[in-house]
């Protein structure tokens, strides 16, 4: 049985797992983006707290994915809960860091001009700082996507959803019929999905970044 035959014979399952993986990553990203940008916005004006936020996210980042998943099984059990938690935690760092860096990087002169013409604090954030920092924040979300895409596959270790199942079940019976094909199909699926997500981000970037600051 070659790879093509394997994929054809399990088309339905593979399609389901592919979409499941995509949906898992997407939902985790949405949560990570909301939380990450919120943490960034809440802390960027207070450098010590901003540093604390970034380094906390950095510490989470250094925990091996497998170990974190293992640890999360204890309080959360198997399946979706530990997977989503782990993915969101990993996805946070690039978003928090880029939000802080992006917001801190907005020219102080512009903020002064905004205050000078009578913009309120929330308005300055929404109208000036966030749009100016947006390309940097978006890059953070993109990096986050790439990261969680791979880690999402490992989630199968905690019986999580997605293409990880193909990889792990294949690896566990390697040498058996179709085992290698299963692993490769899973990996291919993750790679294709990553490329699709990245292309989508390029498009989002084009449509949501002002022409005035596009590089």
């Amino acid at each position, binding site marked *: 049985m070659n790879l093509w035959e394997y994929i054809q014979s399990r088309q339905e399952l593979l399609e389901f797992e592919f979409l499941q993986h995509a949906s898992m990553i997407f939902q985790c990203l949405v949560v990570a983006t909301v939380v990450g940008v919120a943490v960034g916005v809440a802390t960027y004006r207070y450098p010590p707290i901003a540093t604390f936020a970034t380094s906390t996210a950095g510490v989470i980042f250094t925990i091996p994915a497998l170990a974190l998943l293992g640890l999360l099984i204890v309080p959360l059990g198997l399946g979706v809960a530990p997977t989503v938690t782990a993915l969101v935690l990993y996805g946070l760092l690039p978003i928090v860091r880029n939000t802080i860096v992006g917001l801190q990087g907005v020219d102080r*002169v*512009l903020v002064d001009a905004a205050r*000078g*013409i*009578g*913009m309120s604090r929330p308005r300055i954030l929404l109208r000036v700082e966030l749009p*100016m920092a947006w390309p940097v924040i978006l890059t953070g979300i993109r990096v986050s996507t790439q990261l969680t895409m791979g880690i999402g596959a490992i989630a199968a270790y905690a019986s999580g959803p997605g293409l990880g199942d193909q990889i792990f079940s294949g690896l566990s019976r390697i040498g058996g019929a179709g085992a290698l094909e299963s692993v490769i199909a899973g990996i291919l699926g993750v790679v294709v999905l990553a490329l699709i997500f990245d292309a989508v981000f390029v498009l989002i970037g084009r449509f949501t970044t*002002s*022409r*005035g600051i596009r590089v």
Partner: protein
Amino acid sequence: MSETVTDKGTTGVPIELENVTKRYSASSTGLAAVDDLTMSIPAGKIVVLLGPSGCGKTTTMRLINRLIEPTSGRIMIGDTDARAQEPNELRRGIGYVIQQAGLFPHMTVGTNISQVPQMLGWDKQRITTRVDELLDLVGLDSGQFRDRYPRQLSGGQQQRVGVARALAADPSVLLMDEPFGALDPITRERLQDELLRLQEELGKTIVFVTHDIDEALRIGDQIAILDKGSRIAQYASPAEILANPASEYVEQFIGSGSAMRLLNFAKVADVELGQVAEVAPGDEVTRVRETIAGADTAYALVVDAGRRPTGWVTSETIDGRDGTAGELSAPIETTIPARATLQEAMEGLLHAEYDVVPVTKANGEYLGVVSLGTIQQELSDLKERQKARRQERVSAGGDSA
């Protein structure tokens, strides 16, 4: 529409700073950035805060729109205490222009300009009309520039947009913090001239911060030369500062060549203009003769109903002739605007058909006359005063020795 820019005359309000102090360190002994400053800024005038960096001039300006809160003292803008208003609301009513314009790069020119009207809740149609009107006012074609982004504009164009943004809601006060500092000399001079032209039309109260004495002399109706702690070393008109520097500090600031500077910067409006006999265009020749006979000159100026000078009549040209003053007068080709510098006035005088030339306001209204003698007198006065000051200083130095 009361907020249109076509309104002539003064729309500005006076600003009073009363015993204003700003300290950055909490201790009351710490050096104050602004130390007990009291000054009044007249309505509709350009007042320049001039001083070396670190003298507190920018801090002083930022106190007015409360970008910096004073430690003590009171600031009155028109009839209201600046502190009685919510800071953001206060700032929406005060135009603010900074160096390099401070335009938002992610917004188009039009959106940049419409920020304050948007906050004030104007409707879309009114904002669009206003944006076009403002671009026109600052000399940019609205069709061409409205949808451009700041980075597609030159420095000078950006600063024009900056001025348009500040004027958007027709504020009565404009704060300008070294607005032309980053521009090349030619563009700077052009924008200075245009600011003066705009000001003649708008009559705002403008507080203008600069460290450039030439810019201050060119722009200012009044100049406040500031020393450390925003202490006023001298607060007077450019001509007065050039002619009578109040202290050695001021003199150092002006530097050498004050006679040339006087010619370059003192405005015709600042010198004492001569007055001549006036007749109306409809006056009969007998009436004109009487007027000339009653004056100590052999000529009279024909001034029409709109107070515009239209021609000269001399006792020779009307001798033995009939008709009205208007018919008999020799038309005036050269007038000198009150805004002109003495140097420009001199040039005008050299090319004029008569030795005496009428001075007019921007709208053409007659103010008085100027001649080479007037300017010469001004220069010799300056020389006299300088000599007197030098002697004073020598004798003062001798006393203390």
